[in-house]
């Protein structure tokens, strides 16, 4: 492949090209629109899989794909410091994919394709739907790649807005309320995130670049700059005052770090969601169209965990280390609370929503471990849960289309009428409860294993969640598939080809990751190296 093609840009913006194509298609022709959308989503999928295959974690510097160019430059005051220096804001178009991003990019592209298949159940305004859908895909791919705070923020907002319309127009009965709740809650999160980002840009984002005779004093959103500056005051380049009096006005104080860390934690905790910020998610799960929930539960929640890792833990390892116990306890609370509450829900979609809360708790445990095993477990769990919940909502969509309800009290015995779908549902449930051989087990096990090193008691309590997960998953899945079947379901048809294809594809990935997890863990081998350098230097010093 030629090196000069900016693959990351192609990956991110190919859905936008698809939108252009869609604009020229007749708006009543749902089949053509769907086909175009599916074909469009295949482009990022193929590119991301290719990048994933190309990625060589052992070659640390060369192994990471980077695209970087100045983007927005705003001069503040050119006359500052007697004309020898000028203050500028500089934000870059800076995309990068490393061992942490790539699995999530592949996940996003894959789930998007599968959701495009599942959108067969959408029954109005197809054109607008697929346009928002593809915008959403661009947004989420961008989120996982952006390495400039402003760029990240823009992509993050793009997902919010497109999801708002996807829920608000194509959702179920209470769609508008759900969309509003979603937007307000996440808008709040974004606002908090923006405050944290601005604080970062004006402190740790500072650098001075020689520009001929004069100095350019740059406030940048460059992630690498911020990370280096946060880690080490000496990393600031050419601070004029610093040399003079030995102090660095841009180096963040301890209190400031805590403030920004907590802001970032809360911002992404809303997205993840962490108790008690989860109520918006329940509504989205219950009201949004299933294909959108596939993306939401499969990918968008993962943005919360990704952001937490990328901007919380990586930038502030010391704070994360000090807060590890709190994070772990929140994780346990998520696991148990989600599992116990899921047990009494009568609406299958709510069972799955609470199950997501429970599974995200495992991610928090992995993050709290702050060691190689646990963090890889957390990322593995992200990917695995993304696939599993996408699969589960795919089935929910197909079920709802047939039975007109997802209320557990009304369903039963569907294994007779829908043997294929029931089998897939049962397998997905098994994956969700962490059956070895399927992907859910690996993430769960690695997260527990990692955390067990530092917090044995907490992990042991969390392991009880494994039982509870089995309880609620079996209760709901068996209620749907097993038992006597109501007569009115006797005439239902099993999955059509367009429904079966994504089911089988997702199952295949779940199985592949469960049997051969190295395919994913190997790519993350050096994803956390810098974090450990900092943590180890702390322990050493």
């Amino acid at each position, binding site marked *: 492949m030629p090196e000069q093609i900016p693959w990351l840009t192609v990956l991110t913006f190919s859905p936008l090209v698809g939108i252009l194509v869609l604009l020229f298609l007749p708006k009543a022709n749902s089949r053509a629109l769907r086909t175009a959308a599916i074909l469009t989503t295949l482009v990022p999928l193929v590119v991301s899989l290719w990048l994933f295959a190309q990625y060589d974690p052992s070659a640390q510097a060369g192994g990471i794909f980077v695209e970087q160019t100045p983007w927005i430059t705003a001069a503040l005051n050119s006359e500052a410091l007697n004309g020898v220096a000028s203050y500028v804001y500089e934000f870059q178009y800076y995309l990068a994919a490393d061992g942490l991003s790539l699995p999530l990019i592949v996940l996003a592209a894959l789930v998007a394709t599968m959701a495009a298949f599942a959108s067969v159940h959408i029954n109005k305004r197809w054109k607008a739907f697929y346009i928002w859908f593809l915008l959403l895909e661009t947004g989420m791919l961008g989120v996982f790649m952006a390495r400039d705070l402003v760029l990240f923020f823009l992509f993050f907002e793009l997902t919010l807005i497109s999801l708002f319309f996807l829920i608000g127009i194509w959702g179920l009965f209470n769609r508008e309320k759900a969309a509003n709740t979603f937007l*307000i809650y996440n808008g709040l999160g974004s606002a908090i995130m923006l405050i944290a980002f601005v604080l970062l840009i004006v402190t740790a984002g500072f650098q001075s670049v020689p520009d001929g005779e004069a100095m350019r004093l740059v406030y940048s959103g460059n992630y690498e700059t911020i990370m280096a500056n946060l880690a080490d005051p000496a990393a600031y380049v050419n601070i004029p005052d610093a040399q003079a009096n030995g102090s660095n006005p841009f180096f963040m104080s301890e209190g400031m770090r805590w403030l920004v860390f907590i802001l970032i934690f809360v911002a992404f905790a809303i997205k993840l969601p962490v108790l008690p910020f989860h*109520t918006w998610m329940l509504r989205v799960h219950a009201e949004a169209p299933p294909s959108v929930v596939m993306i939401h539960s499969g990918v968008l929640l993962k943005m919360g965990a990704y952001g937490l890792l990328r901007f919380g833990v990586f930038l502030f390892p010391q704070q994360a280390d000090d807060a590890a116990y709190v994070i772990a306890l929140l994780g346990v609370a998520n696991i148990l609370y989600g599992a116990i509450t899921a047990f009494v829900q009568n609406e299958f979609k709510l069972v799955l929503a609470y199950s997501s809360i429970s599974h995200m708790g495992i991610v928090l445990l992995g993050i709290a471990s702050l060691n190689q095993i646990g963090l890889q477990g957390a990322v593995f769990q992200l990917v695995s849960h993304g696939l599993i919940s996408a699969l589960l909502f795919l089935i929910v969509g197909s079920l709802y289309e047939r039975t007109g309800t997802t209320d557990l009290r009304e369903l039963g015995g569907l294994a007779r009428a829908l043997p294929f779908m029931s089998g897939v549902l049962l397998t997905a449930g098994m994956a969700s409860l962490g059956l070895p051989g399927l992907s859910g087990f690996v993430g769960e096990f690695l997260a527990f294993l990692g955390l067990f090193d530092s917090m044995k008691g907490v992990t042991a309590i969390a392991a009880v969640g494994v039982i509870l997960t089995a309880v609620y998953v079996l209760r709901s899945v068996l209620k749907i598939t097993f038992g006597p079947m109501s007569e009115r379901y006797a005439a239902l048809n099993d999955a059509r080809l367009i429904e079966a294809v994504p089911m089988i594809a997702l199952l295949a990935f779940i199985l592949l990751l469960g049997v051969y997890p*190295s395919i994913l863990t190997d790519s993350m081998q050096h994803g956390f190296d810098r974090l450990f350098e900092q943590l180890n230097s702390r322990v050493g010093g």
Partner: protein
Amino acid sequence: MEPVTVYSQYAWLIPVFPLVSFIVLTAFGRGMRSAGMLIGMLGSLAALVLSVLVLLERMTNGDSPEYNYSFDWITIGDFQLNAGYDVTNLSALMLFVVSVVAFLVNLYSAGYLKEDERITVFFGYVALFTFSMLGLVLSDNLLTLYMFWELVGVCSFLLVGFWYTKPEARAAAKKAFIVTRVGDVGLLIAVLLLFWYMPEHDLSFAAIENVFGQTGTIAQGITTLIAILIFVGAAGKSGQFPLHVWLPDAMEGPTPISALIHAATMVAAGVFLVARTYSIFEASQAAMDTVAYVGAFTALFAATIGLVQNDIKRILAYSTVSQLGYMMLALGVGSLSGGIFHLFTHAFFKALLFLGAGSVIHAVHTQNIHEMGGLGRQMKITAWTFGIGALALTGIPPFSGFWSKDAILAVALDKNPFLFAVGILTAFFTALYMARLYFLVFAGKSGAAGKAHESPAVMTIPLVVLAAFAALSGFVELPWAGMGRLGAWLTGEEAAHSGSGLVLVVSTAIGLLGIYLGWLIYVKGAIPRDFISSRAPWLVRLLERKYYIDELYHAVFTVGLRASGRALDAFDTYIVGGAVRLISGAAVWAGRAGTRMQNGQVQTYGLWTVIGLLALILAIAGRRFW
């Protein structure tokens, strides 16, 4: 490579055969019937052949080095999790047991489930189970074992719930999965503990044996904790008290499954696990005692329940629980070979009993033993083979169960006379409930179920084969010096046999006494059947209700979980949701107040202007006094 490991090298193929059957059956099985059965049988036959070859190889070269192959499953930084297989004498023996029973059950099912419309699905599940069980046996480390451990659990779940439209089957399947999962969490935590405490984070059984074989490497407390957690896992799978509740309910599954999974193989996995990690237990006396006492208690406890059950399969199920308790007792008093020996013989005679029961159920379409009777005349083969199985279970010489039970009791007498007494008492109850079962079903007048006829050959052949095993398999280890071949082969040293005639005589006498008593009650009628129930109805009631354990669990766990779920759900809706509504409500209220200020009337604006002016004046003037 040494020539003696020819077949052991290829031992990994053994589980692959049934796996291939499973994949083929799942992918293309729709619409197949006899072809599907053939695929399932071929897979298990291939596994059987290779298992026999491996076993023969290990038998001829008993002390040759074990064959081990492992590879990195996950590598994370400096940590590695391996997967691999390990051919030891123990695993070779288990391979043989599993594949023999699996093959015979496959054969038998072809007759038993001939009418069932989902027969290929059944064979697929059985193949998947066979794969998982063989994989479990072959695993060379605890993590791989744990994975297969869960897989056999899920296969058991699927097969218990095979007749999924029945609500009882659904409930039983769910119960089986969840209760064993409780045990699995114990095992999971044990794996986590071992990972962080083992040198090099090595989870392989060989390393475990090395580390725990020498004292002092790992602290005593941790050793005990690990051992007990492993035992919790084993108790879950092997139906030991207090996690035994799922096993009797699991009888909702098709009878061949009860024979394969819930009698011969999977439930013995717990015993196998303890045997495989025996060095950990040996390093901790407390853990050994726990195993011994739990095992002994379970043996007696389940046997008493078995006395009053009326469902033929449930009696056998409680008998299984009881016999598994024996095996645990053997392991707990330090007799590895005794436990495995009993596992070996039990696999055959209990599978035989279940398949025989299946043959009876197939003929009379009821499971209630009071509705049967006089079947011995109509079903000769079944009656004879079942009788052999019953005698083996009861421990009457020269059948296999006698020798293995004797091996256990002899060691128990040596180590702990109390446990020996419990064992003997259990043996008496065993004889009694088996006599009751046998005489009620096969002797006497025809019952309510009416006429029956013998099952087809495809079902009786497995019975005969298993009967041969049940009769003869005990001779691999005899309690006299120089005759303990199995123990010597398994552990490298022959178990020290007291060889005392005492145990032999006592256990035989107790067995015969139980049978005689049963004969008196159920055939001769010399003792009225309601002898106990008329005098102590509460006792019978207690036993019939299985000591109210199920009710207790329901009250504590199910109701408790549901109540806490409701409470949390309410908390979620009213407290968390309420807080959210409160905040949004406050925002809405502020907005409303704002609109009310701007009602378009000049006078209101004027009023607010005045108020604002006053506020400004107050603020400015107030600053002076601040």
